[in-house]
């Protein structure tokens, strides 16, 4: 039986929204920009380049001849044509006829025009020749197509959140005032950092410090979630030193926290949430581990959770006396529609922490009232008030989550979280109080998600208050942003998982550039500069507002 689970707050539901936006933008019939400027000229005829020469090279030689080397150099730079220090162009020469002597003939031709052969790329010959000699290479039948050698292009991806939060204003301006003498250290604590090494020096700093507490190593068995989070931190605070630590179990989680503290990190970016580990008032095993960091002076920045649409809570009510909770007077099941193959897990807890003597159980049925999963743990005074049940949907359709009172002396306040492998709409939703653990920890910053394009609160972004009445989250930050990690999968990075590292990076950036401020003051500034959204002042949806490093 699953007592609790950790869930990375990656959310990919925004793909559809993005696709719709793209379709609208590209909708036929929309006037194109060029229409305002008059009709486009017809393409040049006949073609100016030869069948043997890449048109960019043809233009390069023509510009070199007519306007000089400087103009040619500018053209080359703008067209990704590689020139060496002696202004020679690097070309790839295809064989015109496949023969054993073709390569030798090509080399001889190159040498005849004072070039030199750099090497082979398959059947192609890479050579450096003077710009004016490029078009002279053609002629012999052994020489076929000539093109510029390709330039390696850095596929850097920068989160749109950098611009949206105006971190770019600080980064581009280079403004600082009494910067911190030492680099700010940011720990990223996650399940896995698959592929991080491929991004060193581009999407990530050239070096990072890693430590795995996961039995499968730093990749966590192919989990790239942490890598994407680290990317965002690096986008926001390029000078920060990153410490990547991953874990699998709660005990490993604690070890990882302690390790990050021992590395004297200033900030921990945390995009993981847990269910059924505490009452949501800041108490609990995970919260205690978080407090080990915060009491050591580490600023803990965590995701609020993605559960505003998958959370429900209410007081147990049995209107017909059958011991099943009534969501309404006539409905004893919270319906969720699943697709075949969807993983579904329901978590249930109630307000009788930590050793409960109020015994409630959790059941999941299909539309034919067949039992799909259940959790009927004992609560006889020594067990936590939690149940969890999951299954893989055998077919598409509606399923019902029901709560049964087994043995209880009072009607407790129930809380459920439904977790599915793909977005699904559940019947009864209570967004308030949907914070995941440890977003409820006092002294830690909980971050909600706003879509970077329009600042709208993501409907899934978990909301406060905590169960002891504190307003959470503390801030909101962009999601739906690009990262190299998820771009490889064709997906923006949605979820409060993407939002938290924006805030962690913002803290690191401000602290690094304005080292005169204490960490506490940096947080005050972030709160004060946040763009107020939702209800005036701090609220349980946006917190203090959407992250903005400059303010308006």
């Amino acid at each position: 039986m699953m007592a609790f689970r950790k869930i990375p707050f990656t959310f990919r539901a925004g793909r559809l929204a993005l696709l719709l936006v793209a379709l609208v933008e590209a909708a036929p019939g929309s006037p194109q920009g060029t229409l305002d400027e008059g009709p486009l000229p017809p393409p040049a005829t006949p073609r100016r380049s030869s069948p043997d020469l890449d048109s960019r090279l043809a233009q390069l030689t023509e510009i070199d001849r007519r306007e000089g080397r400087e103009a040619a150099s500018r053209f080359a730079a703008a067209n990704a044509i590689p020139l060496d220090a002696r202004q020679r162009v690097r070309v790839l020469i295809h064989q015109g006829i496949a023969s054993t002597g073709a390569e030798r003939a090509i080399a001889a031709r190159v040498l005849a025009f004072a070039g030199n052969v750099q090497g082979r790329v398959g059947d192609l010959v890479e050579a450096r020749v003077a710009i004016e000699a490029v078009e002279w290479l053609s002629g012999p039948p052994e020489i076929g197509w000539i093109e510029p050698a390709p330039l390696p292009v850095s596929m850097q991806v920068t989160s749109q959140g950098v611009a949206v939060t105006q971190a770019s204003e600080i980064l581009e301006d280079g403004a600082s005032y009494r910067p911190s003498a030492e680099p700010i250290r940011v720990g990223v604590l996650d399940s896995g950092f698959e592929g991080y090494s491929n991004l060193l020096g581009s999407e990530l700093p050239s070096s990072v410090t890693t430590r795995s507490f996961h039995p499968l190593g730093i990749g966590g068995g192919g989990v790239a979630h942490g890598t994407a989070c680290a990317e965002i931190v690096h986008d926001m605070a390029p000078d920060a030193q990153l410490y990547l630590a991953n874990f699998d179990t709660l005990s490993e989680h604690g070890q990882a926290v302690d390790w990050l503290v021992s590395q004297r990190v200033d900030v921990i970016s945390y995009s993981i949430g847990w269910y059924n580990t505490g009452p949501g008032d800041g108490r609990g095993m995970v919260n205690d581990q978080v407090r080990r960091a915060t009491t050591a002076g580490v600023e803990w920045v965590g995701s609020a959770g993605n559960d505003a649409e998958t959370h429900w809570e209410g007081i147990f009510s049995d209107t017909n006396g059958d011991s099943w909770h009534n969501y309404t007077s006539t409905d004893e099941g919270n319906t969720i529609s699943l697709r075949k193959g969807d993983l579904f897990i329901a978590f249930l807890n109630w307000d009788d922490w930590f050793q409960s003597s109020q015994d409630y159980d959790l059941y999941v049925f299909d539309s034919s009232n067949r039992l799909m999963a259940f959790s009927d743990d004992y609560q006889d005074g020594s067990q936590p008030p939690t149940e969890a049940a999951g299954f893989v949907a055998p077919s598409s359709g509606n399923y019902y989550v029901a709560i049964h009172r087994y043995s209880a002396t009072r009607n407790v306040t129930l809380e459920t979280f439904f977790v599915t492998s793909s977005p699904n709409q559940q019947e009864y939703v209570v967004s308030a109080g949907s914070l995941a653990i440890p977003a409820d920890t006092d002294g830690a910053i909980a971050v909600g998600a706003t879509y970077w394009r329009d600042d709208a609160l993501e409907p899934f972004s978990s909301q406060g208050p905590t169960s002891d009445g504190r307003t959470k989250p503390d801030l909101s930050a962009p999601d739906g942003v690009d990262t190299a990690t998820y771009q490889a999968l064709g997906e923006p990075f949605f979820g409060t998982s993407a939002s938290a590292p924006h805030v962690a990076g913002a803290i690191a950036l401000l602290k690094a550039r304005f080292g005169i401020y204490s960490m506490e003051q940096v947080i005050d500034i972030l709160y004060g500069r946040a763009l107020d959204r939702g209800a005036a002042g701090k609220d349980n949806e946006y917190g203090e507002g959407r992250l903005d490093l400059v303010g308006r």
Partner: protein
Amino acid sequence: VARNALDALDEPMKSGPIAPRRVAIDPSSLLRTFPPSSAFSGEGSQNVPASDAGRAGERLEGIRGWVGGFAGFSTGGAADLENGFLIGGNAAFFFLDHVGIEAGVHRRSTDVAPMPSSALSEGSLDSTIVTGGVVVRFPVSARVVPYVAGGAAYFSNSFEIDASLSGRLAALNFEATEEVESAIGFNVGGGVDVLVSRRLVVFGEARYLDAASDTRAELRDTITGTTAVAGGSQDLKAVEILVGVRYVFPRGPRKAGKS
């Protein structure tokens, strides 16, 4: 020598006949008894006739004091202080022929190019420096007198953060101010006076000034009002190279019996 001259006057009255006896008085011996207005009676002053006092004034010695002005630049010293310009004036009073006290004030403007450990940011530091101390002259020729001087230095400072830095901070809704407190230090140096006319001297001087001022930096977030303050210490030491002009006051004639 002076006593001899007077004795020569008195002598006939003491021991000679009633008829007065003419005694030739050498004016130069009187000059020696009552030094000329003097100040500039150099090495050979005992041979300068009183009627030549003006010419004697072209010799650099025995002055009563001076007032003058100067300009120059500061260099070296604190690593984060760039070369700067200075202008000022001073005055001196000599209670002995070659030993006196001096006091001056000058303004030094220096750009600050901060280093990581600097207490100040990029900006300009203006210091009004009041100096006072002892000056000792060493006449080596009729027209050239080296001297050394030293004493205390009081720095009154004002600092303005570089406008471009202020602008960048303002664009980010921050406002920075920095203050440099007054400080007391010391100065020591030396120079050379060169006589150019009867009462006019040009001089060149190198002087080392040293002090450290407490600093206060404040950064205010103009949106939230969050303010951070940092203290520090700014090294103000520098070598000042200056040239100037002095009007000198010659030492006046001394009354008999008082010299």
